[in-house]
């Protein structure tokens, strides 16, 4: 077992992990942060997207041991206390989720996009989110929600 010291959503954690254990499994099974989902285990669906030192990654392709000394942020950590992140609010308002299994990964990925590009075009949003599969919505309402959240966040700053 490998000893891993990492920070998740601002909290420090000490973990003992199997060398083969993914960051996703460590988050879900050891820290009970089940917001990130395993849709494929091969980095194709993006449902497990988390931020590793602010970089969006498929946590199913990252070993838990690689989180040593890094800051991890998951969907559980994107709201500010009781105040939802604008993306979270806009997803509800625009009905941008049906089953909701892809939503945590898409929210985390979209948050990373807006931190880099506060005014993305529709095409930029579509390509940024091309690694996050949604089977329910046809993406229409998701794209609208992200663009609307971006617009609101620009006005707020």
């Amino acid at each position: 077992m490998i000893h891993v010291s990492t920070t998740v959503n601002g909290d420090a954690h000490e973990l003992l992990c199997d060398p083969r254990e993914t960051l996703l499994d460590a988050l879900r099974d050891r820290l009970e942060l089940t917001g990130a989902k395993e849709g494929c285990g091969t980095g194709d669906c993006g449902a497990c997207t988390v931020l590793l030192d602010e970089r969006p990654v498929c946590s199913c392709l990252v070993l838990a041991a690689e989180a040593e000394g890094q800051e991890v942020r998951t969907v559980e950590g994107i709201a500010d206390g009781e105040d939802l992140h604008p993306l979270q609010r806009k997803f509800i308002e625009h009905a941008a989720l049906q089953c909701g299994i892809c939503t945590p990964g898409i929210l985390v990925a979209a948050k990373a996009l807006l931190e880099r590009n506060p005014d993305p075009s529709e095409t930029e949003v579509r390509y940024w989110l091309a690694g996050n599969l949604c089977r329910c919505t046809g993406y229409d309402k998701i794209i609208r929600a992200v663009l609307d959240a971006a617009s609101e966040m620009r006005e707020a700053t």
Partner: protein
Amino acid sequence: MAFDEETNGFKVVGTRPDRPDGIDKVTGRARFGADVTAPGMLHAVIIRSPHAHARIVKINSSKAEAAPGVKAVVTRADFAEGLEGENWNILENLMAGEYALYDGHAVAAIAATSSLAARDAARLVEVEYEMLPHVTDVDDAMQEGAPVIRAGAADGSVPAGMHPNVVRCHDSGHGDPEEGFAEADLVIEERFTTEATHQGYIEPHACLGTLGPDGRGELWCCTQGHWNVQKVCAALLDIETSKLRVTASEIGGGFGGKTAVFIEPVALALSRKANRPVKLVMPRADVFRATGPTASTSMDVKIGMKKDGTITGASGVFRCQGGAFPGAPMEFTAMCGFAPYALKHVRQIGYDVMTNRPKQAAYRAPGSPMAAFAVESVIDELCNRLGLDPIDVRLKNASREGTKANFGPSWDRIGLVETLEAAKEHPHFSAPLAEGAGRGISCGFWFNHAGETAVQLALSEDGTVQLSVGTPDIGGSRASMCMMAAEELGIPYEDVRTTVADTATLGYNEISHGSRVTYASGLATIEAARDTVKKLCKRAADKWGIDAEAVEWREGCAIPSGPNAGDFDPMPIKEIAGRMGQTGGPIVGHFEATPEGAGVSFATHIVDAEVDRETGATTVTRYTVVQDAGKAIHPSYVEGQYQGGAAQGIGWALNEEYIYDEDGRLQNAGFLDYRIPVASDLPMIDTVIVEVPNPGHPYGVRGVGETSICPPLAAIANAVSNAAGVRMQDLPMRPSRILEALKARS
């Protein structure tokens, strides 16, 4: 419970409130199939056949059982014996008996203290196979000399002389198509094929099961129908149904694929053997290899048309491959294709064909999208060659109220014509096309279903309401239920909480399938609310000392009416609820029945597509869905169903397919090689909600989930064919196929 013609002035229905589970779903709090644990829980892995067809000579699990952390191994011997009919099929599919019937067929399962330990031990299970010849293509499987999947599987509907792999046949219609073809100015007959596709839900099947030596169990699982899971598990494990309580998790997509049972009895069998809770989560490759896919098809469609666009006759043969078990939806395929049209002469034949592939499962309007692809392609070609407008021709021949349907009954009030007219008026239909682009039109039809339904509506002491339904929420239906209850009771939407109850809490509820939830659980909710209102009025009448019949319910209050009008102040629901303990006890409304009157639904789609002549790649540039919803309870989620169906249809038409190699093994069991549409593949998807009320629902609701996937295959194929100048008859229209077609033309 018929359509209430006086229903108007809705206060809640038709608005777009936030869904009640929204915050849970955007914060990661919602609990899906794989998101729960239990003390002492084990993790399970299923061992699967790598061969398309083989006799299982021997399974030796002794090394695996001795591996670290392993607590139980099960094989077919650990399940019930002597099952018959579909229960036997389900068991045979989820744990092979004598034969492995397809690549990915389960042969054993292991439970261990961690998922890594279970995976390691799975490699130690030794299975000896005797290879047998296999067949995976539908047309090949019907040829003389094709390997027989299961001798004697055919039922009495199959004509003599057909290959034993043809196990069921459907034959319906009226008139004489040959007579119709003789009256036509142009007759076109073509063959069309579609490959198997997967529902592609992002959440793999997952469950957590506990089954004690006393036969009592608890099961948590992602399913479209937990009463069905309960019933099937009880049969396959030979326990009493009521001793197993099943709770449905949040469900991460189903689209029909989670109406079937694949893993739950395996987890429970392992739990019974290990006497510990067992969690079983399918890896994605297993999801592709052993669950879900649609039938693949091979179809011959022949249609005759006059120069004025009148269809004079139509016939079709629809061959559906459903894997190593009977059940491909060939009757739906046969019945749906010609349903949009009023035909004097029509005949449709369907064949259910077995092959060495996974057992097909329902996928959104099973069979209808493929049939529409064949039928609507031929109609498009007739329109092209006769120089006719594709919408005018469809309007000319459209099924209307009173038309005798191609499969027998006469249509009730239907909205096909309204969708065609709305499509014709939509700016998309008359927008100029870019150079080299093509436009496609298609209609589509689905039956919709009602099914056994039970609902309970319990009043809390503060006047808020707890609504329990038994249909898992697969796309936002709890919002619609809250809305319908609030509408009837005259209370705010936020005062209703809807819960998907477990199997111990309500009577039997059929699966969330057939686009039935907003129709049937909605109708049941309205009825339960009306039942509650009666009880509320009675409490007020008792208090006032007047007849219950002299009390009306308006805007959340009991109001004296008739001769007593104005005698007493209105009594709000909160006041009655606050005193119910002293006035007769709990107030609970309920409804249990199998409603009749799930109205059918039609749609018309318009698609623009561009084809890259160098790469063969297709881009869908514009998409418009026009569909009859009867009455849209929450329009945003109706639009979502329209958009989702269109997007899945785009994947099916252009990219998605099960690819089998010569060895009968699935070549693309992952999302990298089985490519579903991603955000950058699609345009915005415009929607038009047509509302022609369903006479069988008090608010006029028709199911909307499935019809949206019926027209896309054909509409996209028509757009691509018109763009490329060559008729595309095989799906998916992957780039290589389009290049071949372009090359063949030149």
